């Protein structure tokens, strides 16, 4: 009934990692990485999301269905963003305005 109970130590380690990543991403923002600044910031954010989801939200010990729901949700967000960007980015490739 209670499911899997993680130790306080595990949670504390995850928490420490989250704080470190926050400091890291803030620090990196002050270094000029050009276009990679976006990549680095988002990779760190995704890592933090995974830590929170897997440990704090117990996805690690959840059923396959929960994992499917989570990944399905992210996939749908991807569909929304990618298909819209497909339009925004390729507008004007033809070289004729508005087509």
């Amino acid at each position, binding site marked *: 009934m209670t499911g899997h109970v993680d130790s306080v130590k595990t949670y504390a380690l995850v928490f420490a990692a989250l704080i470190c990543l926050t400091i890291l991403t803030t620090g990196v923002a002050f270094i000029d990485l050009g276009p990679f600044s976006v990549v680095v910031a988002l990779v760190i954010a995704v890592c933090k999301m995974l830590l929170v989801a897997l440990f704090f939200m117990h996805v690690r010990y959840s059923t396959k269905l929960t994992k499917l729901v989570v990944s399905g949700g992210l996939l749908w967000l991807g569909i929304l963003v990618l298909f819209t960007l497909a339009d925004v*980015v390729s*507008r*004007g*490739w*033809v070289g*004729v305005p*508005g*087509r």
Partner: protein
Amino acid sequence: MAPQVDHLLYYLLAVATFFTLLIFVAIFYFAIRYRRRSEKELPHAVHTGMALEIVWSVIPFGLTMIMFTWGADLYFRGSRPPDNALQIYVVGKQWMWKLQHMEGRREINELHVPLGRPVKLTMTSEDVIHSFFVPDFRMKQDVVPGRYSTLWFQPTKAGKYHLFCAEYCGTNHSRMIGWIYVMEPQDYQTWVSGGSGGGSLADAGGKLFESLACANCHHPDGSGRCPTLVGLFGRNVLLSTGHVVKADEAYIRESILQPNAKVVAGYQPIMPTFQGLVTEEGVVQLIEYVRSLNPKPVGAEGSGQMPALTPGVVPGSQRPRVGTAGPAPKER
């Protein structure tokens, strides 16, 4: 374009009619042949045939792929106006169409075009989204505020054709209509050179250029604080960000209204914005003025013929340029 669209329609109609009849006939036949004869009747279950399922998925899909390819081909051709097209500017506003010819003639809710010559409309809106729709040409394109959109057609028969606004735009949406007159080329010449005589669009643009004091910075020989505009139109321009853009209508419009958005490499972002000072029609005149600064290609003659878009080296120009880059991604 219209006959080609109709041919695709005939194909679609044939497919649609076939399947509609197939389903209707099947339903009627089965419904009568297998009608319930007794309340206790229990028919045997018919088991799914994998082959059948595949057949009736794959065959219709094949037919639809023809529709897709055919339609996409028409769409692509409709989206690339030929280089020698007659240029006309369209501004939509609640609730009228304002059209300007290169020679300076302006029309409202009426458009006169010559027979047999491709016509390219460069369109924008002053307020909400409109849509330029000519049913007889099977052509439609939304007209969006803040950007240019393009539509082209080649009239093949003289006459009078409906022009509609097809995107709902408010109270008098259904009265934002007009006519397109397709005239014999010589009639068109007479018509276009008549009228108010306010001079060509480029002339009007030249006057505007002067009254806005643009020439203080944009010297023809490139000696000013700003790049020269001679020979700019249609060329690829290297920007301070390292990107390359094609100097088309949309780029020039943006450079007038948002001068700091795309600064030419080697120049400072010092130009003030003309947003609010120039109307959409004024912008159009300025664009035509800039276009008129291009040297005329060999073989171009007559007032009805506008200079073709010819990228190339222009003597006296000191602007950095990239001649070989293809059409580069633009923001809009």
